């Protein structure tokens, strides 16, 4: 592209500027503040800046003092050299922020869409962006200052030229590396965000795992608790059932025992009833009519009678001889003695009384009378003895008399007695309706035997029922029978357990086993409950851990993604850099040699460029060795930079030819070098339109056209004059 005319309105210094530019090398000369840099900026804006862009820079570029609605306008008339010839075009951009307008006329087309217009312009110039333009075809004079600043500045500037932007990759890479370092710093004192998030995820995950494990344990423990409870209930039920069965078995045992008792009672009472019946028969069949005691008395009497009768009959069967002799003195007569004794006693008493009463004086007082009385008493005693002897003798005489009388009564009396006794015995036998005494004895024996049998039955009955009234015995027997029947029915009601032998023993064993089982079940349940209660886990707290973990995982994922993006960006930039640098290196080594030779008047003819950093070395003939261009003089370095810069422009713009705009980059060169440099530009202008902005007129001779800008002339008349 070659710009033939440039018109500027309301852009900084230039309220209105209209310049015609040569297709080759145009020198735009003007003093400071004449608007050269603004002119360069106007060309950059016209070719690359989106007309609708709103930025503080555009605001600031408005001409001072212009009307409020006046906005920068840049208009270019240009020619595009294509294979089929030269194509004219016009582009006009009016910068009004969002309301900015563009009009591009090219190849008979008019384009007003800002994006489309910029697309077309980029294709025409090979310059896709403003940054690209500044890093390639638009050269500012301060770039040369930077080149000389340090040994890396030249490399950075050249790298910027092939970066495709307006700066090298170093800053980008450093920024990415720092960001990655900040994210990944692993130190404990100053951990990176990734480490913090990763540690937090680890902690939250551990806490959650711990909580989940505790919840799982709780669930298992609750499961076990329910199982233990069910087993305990089952054991309770089993125990209750066995206890119930045992109770039935015990009840059955009691019933069986009661029934046996009733059976025994029934049998005893049945026996008793039988005894009473036998007794009744015996009572009705006594051999004797009289009770046994009466019979016995009768029999004793009859035995006495029988004995007397036989005795009398024995006496009467011989003669009776009575012989009796009494040998006793004849008793004295005791009566006169007794009488005398009484007289003496009475006389002695009377005299004693007279003597005591002194009626008559008696010699010797009372002694005499008393002697009389004593004498009377002695006589009385003697009389008494005499009387008693006389009585005894009398009795003996009576006995003798009686004996004599009895003997004297004789045989007749015995016979009479025999008759009486015999009669009485006969009467007795008759009363018994028996013939003789043997029959009586037989009757007595039979009766005694009969009564003995009754007595035995009575004793047997008493042994069976005690003194129970006999008449109640059948009732009691029937009651026992009824009881037996009731117990039997109750046993049947209890069920098979009542019939099972040794059921109680079996069930007692089973109850003991069940009690042990229930103890175990209760222990298990208590253990399970204790485990549940000992688990302090709180499901909501665990939920909180899970939620925290999600937060941290989300945070970590974002940071990891960010780190990946940084890392991938860094890698991609480095990869692009490596590939680009290699091409650029080879290209520069090949294409800048001629330019370098020209600007150094043949001094340097060999160039070597470092693949990695675009460091340039030239072969110094005076040293016979390769030297870094940074070691050369400032002027030479500027020229090397210019040559390399232009080489890179050729490289990166391919078959496109953007106008080269240089804002006096050779200001530090001496005239000779400056002339050679301009000659280089002159040669380049065959391919690229060159617009050289300068304050100096030393380039005028080499220029195809020179345009002169005028400096502002207005003075600050209001300011105080200072010497």
């Amino acid at each position, binding site marked *: 592209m070659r710009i033939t005319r440039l018109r500027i309105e309301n852009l900084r210094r230039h309220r209105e500027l209209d310049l015609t530019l040569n297709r080759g090398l145009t020198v735009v000369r003007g003093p400071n503040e004449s608007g050269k840099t603004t002119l360069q900026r106007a060309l950059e804006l016209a070719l690359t800046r989106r007309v609708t862009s709103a930025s503080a820079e555009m605001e600031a570029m408005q001409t001072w003092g212009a009307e409020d609605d006046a906005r920068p306008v840049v208009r270019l008339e240009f020619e595009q050299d294509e294979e089929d010839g030269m194509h004219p075009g016009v582009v006009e951009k009016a910068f009004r922020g969002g309301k900015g307008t563009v009009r591009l006329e090219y190849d008979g087309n008019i384009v007003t869409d800002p*994006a489309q217009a*910029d*697309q077309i312009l*980029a*294709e025409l110039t*090979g310059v*896709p*962006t403003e*940054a*690209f333009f500044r890093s390639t075809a638009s050269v500012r004079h301060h770039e040369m200052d930077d080149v000389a600043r340090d040994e890396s500045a030249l490399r950075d500037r050249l*790298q910027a030229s092939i*970066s*495709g*932007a*307006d*700066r090298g*990759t170093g*800053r*980008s890479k450093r*920024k*990415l590396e*720092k*960001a990655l370092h900040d994210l990944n710093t692993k130190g404990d004192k100053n951990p990176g965000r990734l480490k913090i998030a990763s540690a937090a995820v680890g902690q939250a995950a551990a806490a959650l795992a711990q909580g989940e494990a505790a*919840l799982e344990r*709780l*669930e*298992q423990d*609750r*499961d076990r*608790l*329910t*199982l233990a409870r069910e087993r305990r209930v089952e054991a309770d039920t089993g125990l209750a059932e066995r206890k119930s069965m045992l109770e039935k078995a015990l009840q059955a045992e009691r019933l069986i025992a009661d029934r046996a008792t009733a059976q025994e009672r029934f049998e005893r009472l049945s026996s008793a009833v039988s005894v009473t019946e036998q007794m009744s028969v015996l009572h009705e069949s006594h051999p004797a009519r009289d009770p046994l005691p009466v019979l016995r008395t009768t029999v004793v009497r009859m035995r006495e009678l029988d004995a007397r009768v036989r005795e009398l009959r024995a006496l009467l069967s011989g003669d009776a001889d009575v012989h009796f002799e009494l040998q006793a003195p004849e008793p004295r007569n005791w009566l006169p003695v007794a009488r005398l004794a009484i007289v003496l006693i009475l006389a002695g008493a009377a005299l004693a009384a007279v003597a005591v009463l002194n009626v008559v004086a008696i010699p010797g007082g009372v002694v005499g009378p008393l002697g009389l009385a004593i004498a009377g008493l002695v006589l009385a005693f003697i009389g008494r003895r005499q009387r008693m002897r006389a009585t005894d003798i009398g009795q003996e005489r009576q006995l003798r008399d009686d004996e004599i009388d009895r003997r004297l009564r004789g045989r007749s009396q015995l016979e009479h007695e025999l008759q009486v006794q015999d009669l009485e015995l006969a009467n007795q036998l008759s009363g018994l309706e028996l013939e003789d005494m043997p029959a009586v004895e037989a009757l007595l024996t039979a009766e005694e035997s009969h009564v003995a049998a009754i007595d035995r039955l009575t004793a047997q009955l008493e042994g069976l029922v005690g003194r129970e009234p006999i008449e109640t015995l059948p009732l009691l027997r029937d009651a026992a029978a009824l009881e037996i029947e009731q117990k039997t029915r109750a046993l049947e009601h209890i069920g098979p357990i009542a019939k099972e032998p040794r059921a109680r023993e079996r069930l007692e064993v089973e109850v003991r086993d069940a009690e042990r089982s229930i103890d175990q079940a209760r222990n298990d349940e208590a253990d399970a409950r204790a485990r*549940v209660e000992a688990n302090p*886990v*709180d*499901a*909501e707290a665990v*939920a*909180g851990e899970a*939620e925290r973990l*999600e*937060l941290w995982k989300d*945070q970590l994922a*974002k940071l990891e993604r960010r780190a*990946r*993006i940084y890392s991938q*960006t860094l890698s*991609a*930039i480095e*990869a*692009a*850099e490596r590939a*680009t*640098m290699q*091409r*650029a290196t080879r290209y520069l080594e090949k294409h800048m040699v001629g330019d370098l030779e020209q600007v150094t008047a043949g001094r340097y003819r060999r160039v070597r460029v470092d693949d990695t950093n675009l460091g340039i070395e030239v072969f110094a003939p005076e040293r016979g060795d390769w030297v870094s261009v940074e070691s050369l003089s400032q002027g030479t370095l500027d020229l090397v930079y210019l040559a390399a810069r232009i080489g890179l422009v050729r*490289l*990166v*713009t*391919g078959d496109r030819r953007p106008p080269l705009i240089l804002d006096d980059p050779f200001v530090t060169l001496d005239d000779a070098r400056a002339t050679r440099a301009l000659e280089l530009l002159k040669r380049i202008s065959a391919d690229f339109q060159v617009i050289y902005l300068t304050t100096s007129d030393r380039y005028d001779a080499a220029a195809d056209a020179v345009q002169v800008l005028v400096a502002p002339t207005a003075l600050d008349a209001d300011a105080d004059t200072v010497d």
Partner: protein
Amino acid sequence: MLRLLHTADVHLGARYADLGEAATAQRERQFAAFRASIDLAIAEKVDLFLVVGDLFDSNVQPRRSVDRVAAELKRLVDERIRAVLIPGTHDVYDRASIYRSYDLPAVAGANGTDFVTLLTPEQSSVRLETLDLTVHAHVFATKRAPRSPLAGLDVSDDPSTWQVGMIHGSIAIPKQTEHDEVVITTDEIAASKLDYLALGHWHSSSRGKAGSTVYAYSGAPEPVALDQDRAGKVLLVSLDLHDGKRDVQIQERRVGKTTFQKFEVDAAAIASQPALIDDLRALANPDLVMDVRLIGVRPDALDVHEEEVEAGLADAFLRIRVRDRSVPPLSDGPLPPEDTILGAFVRDTEAGIAEMEAADNVDGAAEARDVLRLGRLLLAGEEVTL
């Protein structure tokens, strides 16, 4: 006329992976919704309160939760309102069931009465004579039902006038419910002859009629996840008899407060991060869980940090989640020449993006786009916050 309050799926103690620090508050809101259901039952003087499963989110919820629930049920007992509950699939009646660990009716002070009844495999129905109503529920001790809970249900011999069923499960939907633990069909519902079938398990409310049986899902009283737009309600059900004709009416009542909203923002329309925060703040709602997704193509100049937006709006919502699903653009307009670093970078990276997109590696492609954007900005010397 009898009036029932039907709720289910309270999911006390549920986890909310997406709610972050707001999860605890949301758990409280769930309980608050349950309490609001009790309040409504008392205010409306209903005859019966039904909880159709998943009252608890799991069987390992703490005693504290059981006590709180029991305290609320006791309020019903005090008002002489009967309550019937069944376990669900989250609080399944297995051996570790929370209902086995804690005797809820007893803790609620209703032991030995019919004021609070938990139907279990051992007790599949309860006849509430004072209401002339029988509640049927075939509950299983396993999460996956061995058979339909309506199989074998026969209410013809039940002397009560009203027959109500409770099931925590899904109504069969072809290709959707094959893997559900408990599934019933509308044919089974129609054959049940129940007057009303109270359903749980689906968190959004819905209703229908099969044969003479009216059935309904109450939904969760408080939404449990982002997609439960019809949650937050309980059902007031009236059973009426007019001239021998049975009439079942259902009213929805809102008890939940939390709402969820998915909000997509075209990144191309975002002027800046502060502008995005201002725009979202206009939607501020302390009961709203806002799920913001940035979509579309994000201009290079737009630098949005999700966590900064979330932090900037934390006070405006119950919870706001910002997910940047937007992607940076591919290079627009003329590319730098391929002999430049930027040109090589752009071309190589875009080639990689194209490969990944062709391989449906969406995440990789999105990351590569971010790589492209970042490299482009850095190489262009733009200020980028890393």
